[in-house]
C-alpha cells in the first residue's frame, strides 16, 4: 500500500517565500543606496619637505682651466 503525503495548506509556504523575497529586495536596495567605494586614493600626508626650488642654471663662458681650492 502506498501512502502519499500531500500538503493541502500552501498559504504558510507562500508567506515564507514572500517574506524572504521582500527581505532580499530590502537588503539589495540598501546596498544600491550605499555610496560607491572610493576609486581615487586619499591624498597622502606629506612625510618630507617639498623639494627646494630648482637652482638657476647659468651658461658661462667656457674656460680652459678650472681652479681647485678648499670649499
Amino acid at each position, binding site marked *: 500500500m502506498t501512502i502519499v503525503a500531500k500538503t493541502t495548506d500552501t498559504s504558510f509556504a507562500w508567506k515564507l517565500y514572500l517574506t524572504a523575497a521582500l527581505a532580499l529586495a530590502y537588503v539589495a536596495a540598501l546596498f544600491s543606496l550605499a555610496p560607491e567605494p572610493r576609486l581615487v586614493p586619499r591624498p597622502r600626508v606629506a612625510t618630507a619637505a617639498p623639494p627646494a626650488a630648482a637652482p*638657476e*642654471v647659468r*651658461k*658661462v663662458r667656457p674656460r680652459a*682651466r678650472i681652479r*681647485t*681650492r*678648499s*670649499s
Partner: protein
Amino acid sequence: MFEFHAMGTEITLSAPELGAAGEWTLARQVVGVFAVAEARFSRFLPSSELSRLNRAVAPVRVSAELFAALRRARRYVDLTAGLFDPAIGGALVACGYDRPLALGLDCGRAAAPSAAARFSELELDPESRTVFRPHHLQLDLGGMIKGHTVDCAAALLPAAGFVDAGGDAALRGAERWEVEIEDPHDPERVVGLLRIRDRAVATSAANRRRWSVGGRSQHHLIDPRTARPGSSDLAQATVIAETTELADVLAKTAFLLGRERAVRFLKQLEAVGAVLVGEDGALTVVGDAELHDA
C-alpha cells in the same frame, strides 16, 4: 659650460662635444643629481634622511644610499686610522657650524664643549640596513658626499668633460685638463698647475670656511682627536685620486696629519698624488702628481 649653486658652492660642468643644447640637458640632469643628494644627506635640512638619523632615539632602517655611504665612510675611517671621521657633527655644532655658512656663523658666545664621538661607535647591520646611533654621536658626511655626488654626476658625462664643485672636480676624457691650485695665503694667486686626465682632484684648507665664535677663529676641518678645528704645519692639501670622494677624504686627512706624516701616508697609497702647501709657503709634491708653472 653651465653653472648652478648647490651644497653651498658653485657647481660647474663642461661637456664640449655635446654642444650647447646637449650640455644644457646634461646640466638639468646634474642639477637633479645634486638636489637628490642634498635632500638626503644635508645635516642642515631637518627633513633629510641624515637629519632624521641624527635625531633618532632607536635603531633606524635607512635607505640603501645612506647605508652604502656609511659603509664607504667606515672604509675611509679605517684607511685613515680615524683621522677622517664623520662622527664630528656634534663638534661642528659646538664650534658654531650649526647652519649653512652663507647664513653667517659669527657670534659672541664661547664655543660649547662637545662630547667626543667616534664613527666606530655607530652600529651598522647590513642584513636589515639598520643603524644604531649612540645619542651623543652626530654625523656629518658633508665633503665626502659632495665628492661622491661629483662622481655620480661625472658618470653622466660623455667621453670628455668635467664636473667641478667649488674645487672638488672629476675630469674625464683623453685630453688633459688644466687645474690651477689656489694659493691659500692669497686666493688671487695660484701656486701651480696640474694636468689631469680621467682622475679627480680635491683640496682642503682652513682659509675659506672660517668664522668667529666668542672672539676665537674657527674653521670646518675638525680634528677627531680633539673635536676642535685642526691645525698643522700645512695651509692646504690638494689630492689627485681615482674618485672625487676619495680625493676629498685624503685631502682632509693630509691637512690634519701635517707635512711629514702626510707625505708618508700618501706615498703608501696607489694611484694617488698630492700637492701640499705649508704654512711657510713651501710646496711638497707627492706620488702621482706633477706640478707645472701656471
